[in-house]
């Protein structure tokens, strides 16, 4: 019998395990080290590292949480340096370096589907500059003119002599960064636009990928955490003696739940979240032992003023805000007169629940406080902020702090908040010299998160005798959130008489998070659904009615955003045409079969550059349930940097939107979240997933637009239309499965 030793790495080897394994490409080739290569890796212009074996690592300033940025962003630098994909690795940017070098990595928060677009110029420019530096160093080494040299296969030469990148890397690093260097013309691209395989497919198919939860350090202990179950609650006491003899138990500590992690210092609307609530952590030899002891720990909480809050009471507050009238965020024409003159008017109230992101990897962070230093590791969407929060929680300056990003098992906006980093550091601060891995259970993650906010909206519309919408009025009220009326104000239809009001009810207990699709999700679905209600009132097919109102000639001459409004209408028309043709003829509608079609572009403001996505959902209503059959998507995303990753991301957004809309809701009773795990917060499974056909539309654009979120808002509009067209109920409240889905009489 062999005694299996736990696999432990020294602190020195720790980082290479965390980053190196994750970053290794699928097909490691052994390249012999060139004769004059530097013995140590050489960093060039912050963005690449040239290794002694002539492999090149590209620095990635976004978190890899499934969206494929470690493949697709690397393509920018690979293109300019003509890198060989099989000799290219990636590594994360270092937040402390970014701070010291005045935000050299340009865009380090992973949010709003911005990564590919925001880094398009910076990473290509850096690649071109590094290429020029390497070429200049090679010219000097070879004693030839730089203009005579070309770059191929990680080497620079003129046909008669050549040197490898590794041989001249140190010389190149000593040169100043050249300015005014041109990036390649798109006609020269060999890598941008190609469906490169994911660099992480191998490590993630073999269990070798190292996520935050998988980090191991010598002497590491595990912490389980519990916040006040009622929002706003405070810790009175806990009784450690009751658990101190349980297996593996070391300590119990009182901590703060930590700041929101998105804005430090807090802006006005974060103040309630700033110190959040009290929490207790139990430390043990294994996480399971820590969690068992935490479950058994007698804790007394002061529940605070939200102890009687419920979903009903929050919805009543939203209703009161709607009754009171809101901030007018858009007003054109005379909507009240138009409503009086309309042949018929329609009114409806729509409801969207709180939702939680539920990434597969629960919140976790590892921290070590040692003397006057703090070092932390975590899966996060905002490493710069995590660094500041780690320093803040340790009570030291950021100069003494280090933070390392890890692979993330999903994020969807939840990991923009680094509360768990704060928690881990606070525990580690009370156990100096001992690395602490803090993990929140799934139950804790659902009970104490940051949530996509609840929303109620009231609509009133007028239609004339010819089926034209003559008046459009909406008022939406959201639970605590940032100001996000854009989905309501940015309707593409050029209504002559429109009034849009917005209210935010700030004194609701659940803290706010952006979630994949952000405020567009609530608003675009509701706008689309109400437009379809007006279609029914006018006696028209829903798709025909939407298309009939995409009229460039109806855009008012005096609109400040006239050009943008016309361009959007034309784009929506193109995407509708494309998705309708790809979806093909629909089966006979009704009697349980339905198709819904929607188009949306997540445009926040006039001129905003974004993808426009059209989706057709075909489904059946059968045995009182919804059966998804097929989803067809047409994607106008400008330059498609990596088409196979775009396809995966669109499928992912479709499933995220469908799962949330069909199953998802977070509800509150007695101030506590009622859902505790995937048995009460279910995610669509493989057997419920539709066939998905994704079509990337041809584009003349040479700039990419984001594709991570865009499918989420639009698929919900298509889904609720499909339910109606199948003969099911009008869905004005999500989730769909809360409705009686038997066919209308």
């Amino acid at each position: 019998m062999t005694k299996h030793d736990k696999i432990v790495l020294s602190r020195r080897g720790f980082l290479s395990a965390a980053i190196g394994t994750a970053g290794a490409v699928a097909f490691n080739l052994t390249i012999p080290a060139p004769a004059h290569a530097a013995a140590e890796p050489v960093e060039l212009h912050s963005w690449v590292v040239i290794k002694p074996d002539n492999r090149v690592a590209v620095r990635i300033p976004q978190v890899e949480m499934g969206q494929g940025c470690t493949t697709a962003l690397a393509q920018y630098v690979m293109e300019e340096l003509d890198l060989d994909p099989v000799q290219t690795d990636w590594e994360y940017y270092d937040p402390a370096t970014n701070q010291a070098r005045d935000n050299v990595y340009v865009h380090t928060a992973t949010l709003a589907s911005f990564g590919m677009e925001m880094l398009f110029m910076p990473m290509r420019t850096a690649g071109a500059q590094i290429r020029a530096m390497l070429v200049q160093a090679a010219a000097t080494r070879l004693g030839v003119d730089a203009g005579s040299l070309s770059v191929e296969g990680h080497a620079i030469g003129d046909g008669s002599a050549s040197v490898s990148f590794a041989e001249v890397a140190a010389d190149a690093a000593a040169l100043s960064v050249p300015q005014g260097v041109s990036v390649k013309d798109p006609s020269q691209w060999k890598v941008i636009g190609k469906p490169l395989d994911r660099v992480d497919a191998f490590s993630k198919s073999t269990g070798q990928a190292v996520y935050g939860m998988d980090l191991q350090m010598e002497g590491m202990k595990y912490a389980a955490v519990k916040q006040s179950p009622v929002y706003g609650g405070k810790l009175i006491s806990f009784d450690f003696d009751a658990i101190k003899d349980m297996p593996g138990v070391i300590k119990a500590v009182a901590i703060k739940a930590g700041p929101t992690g998105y804005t430090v210092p807090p802006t006005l609307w974060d103040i309630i979240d700033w110190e959040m609530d009290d929490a207790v952590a139990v430390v043990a030899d294994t996480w399971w032992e820590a969690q068992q002891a935490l479950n058994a720990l007698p804790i007394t909480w002061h529940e605070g003023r939200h102890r009687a809050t419920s979903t009903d009471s929050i919805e009543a507050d939203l209703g009161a805000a709607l009754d009171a009238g809101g901030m007018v965020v858009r007003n054109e024409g005379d909507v009240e007169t138009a409503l009086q003159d309309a042949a018929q008017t329609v009114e409806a109230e729509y409801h969207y629940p709180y939702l939680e992101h539920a990434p597969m990897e629960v919140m976790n962070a590892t921290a070590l406080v040692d003397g006057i230093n703090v070092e932390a590791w975590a899966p996060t969407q905002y490493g710069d902020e995590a660094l500041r929060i780690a320093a803040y929680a340790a009570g030291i300056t950021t100069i003494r702090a280090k933070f390392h990003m890890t692979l993330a098992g999903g994020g969807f906006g939840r990991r923009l908040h680094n509360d768990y980093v704060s928690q881990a550091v606070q525990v580690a601060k009370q156990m100096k010299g001992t690395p602490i891995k803090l993990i929140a259970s799934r139950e804790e993650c659902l009970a104490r998160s940051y949530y996509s906010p609840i929303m109620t909206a009231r609509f009133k519309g007028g239609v004339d005798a010819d089926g034209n919408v003559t008046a459009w009025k909406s008022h939406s009220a959201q639970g605590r959130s940032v100001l996000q009326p854009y989905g309501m104000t940015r309707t593409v239809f050029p209504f002559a008489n429109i009034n849009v009001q917005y209210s935010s009810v700030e004194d609701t207990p659940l803290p706010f998070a952006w979630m994949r699709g952000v405020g567009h999700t609530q608003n675009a679905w509701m706008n689309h659904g109400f437009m379809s209600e007006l279609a029914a009132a006018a006696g028209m097919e829903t798709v025909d009615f939407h298309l009939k109102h995409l009229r460039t000639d109806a855009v008012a001459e005096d609109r400040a955003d006239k050009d943008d409004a016309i361009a959007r209408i034309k784009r929506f028309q193109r995407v509708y045409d494309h998705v309708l043709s790809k979806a093909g003829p629909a089966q006979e509608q009704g009697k349980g079969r339905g198709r819904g079609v929607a188009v949306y572009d997540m445009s926040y403001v006039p001129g905003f550059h974004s993808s426009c996505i059209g989706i057709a959902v075909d489904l059946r209503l059968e045995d009182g349930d919804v059966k998804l059959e097929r989803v067809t998507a047409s994607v106008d995303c400008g330059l498609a940097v990596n088409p196979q990753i775009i396809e995966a991301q669109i499928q992912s957004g479709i499933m995220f939107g469908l799962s949330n809309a069909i199953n998802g809701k977070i509800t509150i009773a007695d101030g506590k979240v009622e859902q505790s795990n995937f048995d009460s917060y279910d995610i669509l499974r493989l057997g419920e997933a539709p066939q998905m056909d994704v079509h990337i539309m041809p584009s003349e654009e040479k700039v990419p637009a984001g594709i991570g979120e865009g499918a989420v808002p639009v698929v919900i509009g298509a889904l609720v239309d499909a339910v109606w067209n199948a003969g099911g109920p009008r869905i004005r409240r999500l989730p769909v499965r809360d409705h009686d889905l038997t066919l209308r009489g």
Partner: protein
Amino acid sequence: MTKLTVNGQEIEVDASPDMPLLWALRDKLGLTGTKYGCGIAQCRACTVHIDGEAMPSCQIEIGDVGASEITTIEGLGEDGSHPVQRAWVSGNVPQCGFCQSGMVMAAVALLEKNPNPTDEEINDEIVNICRCGSYSRVRAAIHQAAAEMQKG
């Protein structure tokens, strides 16, 4: 001390017999390829093979395993040469990838029982949660692996 047979190796684990196999694998043996996602057998990210059967390791106490053979994702082979893993890589199946160890283990167990499953059979057997929605590619990779394995 509890004796376990993990990936063909007999191992002694210093933990109480009611510790779930998942946590013994992760925190006692350092086999972190097996993932925690829920702890209540809902998400199946913790799927391992017990005598060839796909089981959620969060629900199995180490004291109950006895002489049964435990296979984890690491035990399929670190070179990724299993046909299911090859199909996963060539099909670019993983996104965030956190569920994929469990997906791969579930798919391997399915194909050992049923070398050429229909879509309906895949629906019934692969109940793992993927929050990224990789299901289309999972299904395609299972069919591809089945075809490869039948070619031999």
